[in-house]
C-alpha cells in the first residue's frame, strides 16, 4: 500500500514538473496557430479554429525571412568552421600535448568568462576600420571565438576517452597519424563530438548581444524576434508566438537528438 502511494506521488510530482516545463512552450505553440481575437479573449481558449496566417505573415515578412536566412548562414558557417578547426586541435591536445593541455584548455574556456559586452564595443571599432561592420562575415568571425573554444573544450575529453590502444593497433597496421585520426579516433569519438557540435550550435543560435551590436542591419533571428517584442501597444501576439516557435524549433530538435544519443551512450556503457 505504501509502495502504491509513493508510486502515485512520484508520478504526480513528475507530472507537475512536466506541466511546468512544457506548459509555456505548449501555450506558445498553441498561440502560434490562433488568430489574435482568440488570443486576447479574457477566457483562454484551448479549442479554436487553427490558422497558419501567423506563419504566413512571418515568412512573407522580409525582415523575419532574412533574419532566418542570416541565422542559418551565420550559425552553420561558424559551427562548421569551428568544428574543422577545433576538432583536430582537440585531438592534438588530447594526444600529443597533454602536459600543456590543461593550461590550453583553461585558456580556451576563459574566453567564455568574458562578458560579451566587453568584446562587443572594441569589435565595433575594429570592424568599422576593417570595413566588415554589419556584415555576416564579421559576425561569423566573432562567433568563431565561441564555437572554436566550445568545440575544443568539449572535444578534448571526447578524444581522451578513445582508448589509446585502438590508435596504437591502427599504427601497427601501418596507418599514419592523419589516417588514424580520420579512420579511428574520429569515428570512435563521433557520438560525443556530435553532442559538442549540437551544444555549440544552440549556443550561437541563441546569441543576441553580439549580433545586435555588430550586425544591426543584417540581423539574425534573435535580433528580429527581440525587435518584434518592442512594437508598442498593437502587439501581434500570434506573430510573436509563431516567430518564437520558429526560433526555438532547431535547438529543440537538436536537444531531442542529443538526449536520444546520450541515452544510447548510457545504455551501451563506457568502453
Amino acid at each position: 500500500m505504501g509502495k502504491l502511494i509513493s508510486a502515485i506521488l512520484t508520478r504526480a510530482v513528475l507530472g507537475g514538473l512536466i506541466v511546468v516545463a512544457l506548459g509555456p512552450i505548449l501555450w506558445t505553440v498553441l498561440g502560434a496557430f490562433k488568430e489574435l481575437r482568440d488570443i486576447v479573449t479574457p477566457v483562454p481558449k484551448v479549442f479554436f479554429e487553427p490558422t497558419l496566417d501567423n506563419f504566413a505573415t512571418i515568412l512573407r515578412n522580409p525582415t523575419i525571412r532574412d533574419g532566418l536566412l542570416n541565422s542559418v548562414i551565420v550559425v552553420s558557417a561558424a559551427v562548421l568552421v569551428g568544428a574543422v578547426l577545433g576538432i583536430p586541435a582537440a585531438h592534438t591536445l588530447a594526444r600529443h600535448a597533454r602536459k600543456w593541455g590543461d593550461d590550453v584548455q583553461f585558456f580556451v574556456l576563459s574566453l567564455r568568462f568574458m562578458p560579451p559586452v566587453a568584446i562587443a564595443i572594441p569589435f565595433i571599432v575594429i570592424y568599422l576600420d576593417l570595413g566588415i561592420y554589419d556584415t555576416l562575415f564579421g559576425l561569423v568571425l566573432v562567433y568563431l571565438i565561441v564555437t572554436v573554444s566550445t568545440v575544443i573544450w568539449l572535444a578534448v575529453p571526447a578524444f581522451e576517452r578513445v582508448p589509446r590502444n585502438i590508435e596504437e593497433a591502427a599504427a601497427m597496421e601501418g596507418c599514419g597519424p592523419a589516417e588514424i585520426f580520420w579512420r579511428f579516433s574520429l569515428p570512435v569519438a563521433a557520438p560525443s563530438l556530435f553532442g559538442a557540435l549540437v551544444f555549440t550550435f544552440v549556443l550561437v543560435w541563441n546569441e543576441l548581444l553580439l549580433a545586435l551590436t555588430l550586425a544591426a542591419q543584417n540581423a539574425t533571428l534573435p535580433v528580429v524576434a527581440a525587435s518584434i517584442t518592442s512594437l508598442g501597444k498593437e502587439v501581434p501576439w500570434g506573430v510573436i508566438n509563431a516567430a518564437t516557435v520558429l526560433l526555438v524549433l532547431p535547438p529543440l530538435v537538436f536537444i531531442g537528438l542529443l538526449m536520444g544519443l546520450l541515452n544510447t551512450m548510457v545504455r551501451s556503457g563506457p568502453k
Partner: protein
Amino acid sequence: MANISCNDIVKSYGAHPVIEGLDLDIPDHEFVVFLGPSGCGKSTMLRMIAGLEEVTGGRIAIGGTDVTDLPPGERGVAMVFQSYALYPHMSVADNITFGLRRQGASRSEIAPRLKQVAELLGLEKFLDRKPKNLSGGQQQRVAMARAMIKTPQVFLFDEPLSNLDAKLREKLRTEIRKIHMQLKTTTIFVTHDQLEAMTIADRIVLMRDGRIEQMGTPDEIYERPATRFVADFIGTPAMNFVSADIAAGDRLIAHGEGMTLELSRSAFPDLAPGQRVELGLRPARMELCTPDTSNAITGRVVLVENMGAEGQVITEVAGREVSFVTQSFRDLSPGDPVSFTISPDHIHVFDSSTGHSLRRN
C-alpha cells in the same frame, strides 16, 4: 619469420632511466616470454620492439633489418593488446581484415584467409557482430585473428590474458601455444604471471628494474635460478629462504635457524667454512620423513592448505615459518610435530650480500 636482436637498448623518460643498456637476441621460431614484476620494463621493451615507443639509445633489428627508426607498420610485426584494442565501429570481420584491405588486397585474396583464421580461432559464427557484443575471451580471439591474418614476421603479446578469468586464461594459453607450434612465428609474450610464463615459453627472459635478471628455458630458470630474486619470483608456493653459516669439516654442512643441512660439494665447490650464505628450499622439493633422516628439518605444523592433489604445510621451525608440499597432508593438523627433508641436490645457495647463486655446475 625472423630473429630479433636488441643491442644496448636504453630508454629513459626525461631524466628517469627505465632501461639501461639491455642486450637481447631471440632466434627465429622461438616463443620467448618477458616475465617480471610490474614496472620492470618488460612492456616498455615490447613496445619499443613494436615501434610504439622510441628508444633513447641502441638499435633493434628484426630479420636482419635495422628497424629502430621505422614506424610500427613497416616492421613486419603484429601485436595483441591486453585491452584487445578492437575497433568498436567495425564488425569482427572488418576488424580482422582491416590491415589487408588497407594494403589493397583483393576480395578474393582476403576471403580465404579470413575463413582460415576464423576457423583456427573458432570465430566463424561471430564475423558479423560488433566487438561489444562479444565476451572477453571472444574479443581476445578476434585480436589474435587480426594479428595473425597478415602473417607477420613476429607476434607480440602484451599481457593478452590478464583481463580474462582463470579458466579461460588457461584455455587460451594452450591455444596460443598450439598455434605457435603450427605457425612457428617468432613470438614475444609479456606477462607478470610466472606460471603462465613457465607453461608457455621456450625461453623466459626474467626482468627486474630494467635489466635482464636471467634468461633461460623454464627448466633452467626453475632448477638453476641465477639469483635469489629469480628463485623467489618463480614457483608456487614460494621458496623458503634461510640464513646459514658454512661449517668446517669433510662434508659440506650449513647451520642456520634451527636447521643443519648437507649441501652438494660438486655443485658448490667454492664454499668456505665460516661463509655466510642464504639457502633456498623449494617447498615442492621437500617431503615428509622421520626425525632421524639426514637433512631432516623438525618443526611444528601451523597451518595446512589443501590444494586438492597435494597440500602446502606451513610449519614453525625455530621461530620462523617454513613451508613444504606433500600429498599426505591429510594426516597432519595444526600443532603436530613434523619432520621433512630435502636432498642436497635441490638446495640452492645464494651469496647473502649480492644475492647471486653460488652454484658452479
